[in-house]
């Protein structure tokens, strides 16, 4: 539990961090002023231009020096914020160090560097003025608030003539206290302004931040997809090593009982028959389930073998042509597999087709999957129930940044084309 005392209630919150903030402002002053001599130099050479045009040759120097100092000053500002502000300024993407001319030029032409130089050369001096003002407020506040102490402490001959234990001094004390009250707020405002300027100009630009965010999101999404795939494979393996083997064993035993125990009463034989049939059905159902999760054949042998398996189980003839020089990533393989298997299921269910064709090929960095049938057509992406059928396929494809198209005029044929990006 936090106990708030009276002084804290009156002065507490603003004062709690005032010390740190004032230190931050004070430390900022020299850094903000660092480029000012270079400005003065530049102004001086400009002025000299009037009399001696030869000075033109010198004018780029202050600018180049500013750019040269920028990384140093930026590092200084970062340290200041880390040590006194308790925060890390985000870093923009800057080309790595290098001593050759090319990398120096590359570094000089980055926007990040110029924005940073802008902070040091333009915002810096302006902030320095405010820094000075705030520090002056603090100094005046401390001195004025403690005016009686000064009067008491200083020998009489040092005193300003008409200042003594007078009512005037009481006003000064009151003014000082008012400034003390204002001080933390002014400091806070300045720190906010400074921080904002530093974040905007020293950190990455908005575009860069968005780009970074997109990259992060893409990476985390890929991670989630991979994890989901890995999980499916794990479940498949567990089922294969456990329940599937056990069910087969059960069915074998029941089959043995049925064929070896010849002299059984009719009703017992019936029960065993039934159990045997159900065990076999359970195996078939479990196999279907496993195929829906992540078939082992896909992991072991790739798309060609897995899709042939899908096609072979369908009641209509399906031709499968898979032409892949190399196997795509497991995630892309899984998406391609489910697209084809779901599309073929749809063909059988709805299309009244007599045959279907599946082609999978790789064109540069794209996996092209085409499923065509000679059915009645009229498949509608929009009309599909959410999360199932075509809409589900489109979503699954979109999850890996693929494109999905379905052309299905009334009367047919239906052609589903899917493009999946895969790394080279």
């Amino acid at each position, binding site marked *: 539990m936090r106990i708030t005392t009276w002084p804290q209630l009156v002065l507490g919150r603003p004062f709690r961090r005032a010390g740190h903030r004032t230190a931050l402002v004070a430390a900022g002053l020299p850094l903000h002023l660092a480029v000012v001599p270079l400005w003065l130099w530049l102004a001086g050479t400009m002025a000299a231009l009037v009399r001696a045009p030869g000075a033109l040759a010198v004018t780029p120097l202050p600018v180049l020096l500013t750019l040269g100092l920028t990384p140093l000053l930026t590092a200084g500002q970062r340290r200041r914020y880390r040590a006194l502000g308790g925060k890390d300024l985000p870093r923009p993407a800057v080309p790595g160090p290098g001593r050759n001319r090319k990398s120096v030029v590359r570094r000089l032409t980055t926007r990040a560097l110029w924005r940073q130089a802008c902070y040091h050369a333009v915002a810096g001096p302006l902030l320095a003025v405010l820094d000075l003002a705030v520090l002056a407020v603090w100094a005046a506040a401390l001195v004025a608030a403690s005016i009686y102490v000064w009067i008491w402490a200083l020998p009489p001959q040092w005193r300003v003539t008409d200042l003594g234990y007078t009512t005037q001094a009481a006003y000064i004390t009151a003014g000082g206290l008012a400034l003390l009250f204002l001080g933390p707020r002014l400091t806070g405002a300045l720190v906010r302004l400074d921080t904002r300027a530093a974040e905007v100009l020293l950190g990455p630009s908005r575009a860069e931040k968005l780009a970074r965010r997109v990259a992060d999101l893409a990476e985390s999404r890929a991670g989630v997809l991979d994890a989901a795939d890995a999980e499916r494979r794990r479940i498949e393996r567990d089922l294969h090593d456990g329940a599937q083997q056990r069910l087969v064993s059960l069915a074998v035993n029941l089959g043995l009982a049925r064929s070896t125990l010849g002299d059984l009463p009719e009703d017992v034989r019936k029960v065993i028959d039934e159990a045997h049939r159900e065990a076999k059905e359970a195996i078939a159902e479990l196999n279907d389930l496993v195929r829906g999760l992540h078939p082992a054949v896909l992991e072991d042998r790739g798309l060609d073998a897995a899709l042939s*398996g899908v096609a072979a189980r369908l009641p209509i003839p399906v031709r499968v042509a898979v032409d892949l020089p190399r196997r795509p990533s497991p995630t892309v393989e899984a998406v391609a597999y489910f697209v084809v298997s779901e599309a073929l299921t749809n063909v059988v269910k709805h299309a009244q087709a007599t045959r279907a064709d599946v082609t999978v090929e790789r064109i540069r960095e794209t996996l092209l999957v085409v499923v065509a049938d000679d059915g009645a057509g009229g498949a509608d992406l929009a009309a599909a129930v959410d999360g199932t059928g075509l809409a589900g396929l489109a979503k699954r494809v979109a999850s890996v940044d693929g494109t999905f198209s379905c052309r299905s005029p009334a009367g047919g044929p239906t052609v589903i084309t899917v493009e999946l990006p895969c790394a080279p």
Partner: protein
Amino acid sequence: MRAVIAEDSLLLRIGVVKVLEAAGFEMCAQVADAEGLLAAVEEHRPDIAVIDVRMPPGFTDEGVRAALVIRRQYPGTAVLLLSQYVEERYAADLLAANTSGVGYLLKQRVADVEEFTEAVRRVAAGGTALDPQVVAQLLVRRHSDPLDRLTPREREVLELMAGGRSNSGVAAELVVSESAVAKHINSIFTKLDLPKADADHRRVLAVLRFLGIATA
């Protein structure tokens, strides 16, 4: 008949052993990997080896490779592969090397005890046994060729032939008379332009043509 089994899943191994023993096979050896299998075949020279496709250490196609070695080095030993799923390339590899004394079935078929023992006997006696799913899957690969001229019924007959059935087996499966089957088979031979040699050889050729293994 004498048999060895190579299967790394203990439950299934016990199941197969029980089924085969009940069917009168003498189980000479039970092993869990390809190396053990080759040693057991060398030692016992069994009539048939029942082999899991995926076995330690790689869990890929150890069983298929061992089966090919066995068929080459010990012609007296037939091989029957058991697989969790259909990989038609394995079946094709196996059949390309040998057309007799080989089989390829899904593991779950062991549960159909009578049919399984029938298939094992057939393979051990030098015949073939292909899982209906293997046959269906091989069909997916077939592009336009004489097979397209077959009627659906003839196709069915050919599929069953590919699975290793005799004429009477096909007739029983399709619930037609044996003479009807013979008629279908003759029609198949004609449509596939198979030479008029002895019937068994034509049968094998038709099946190979069907599976896309023999081209002539």
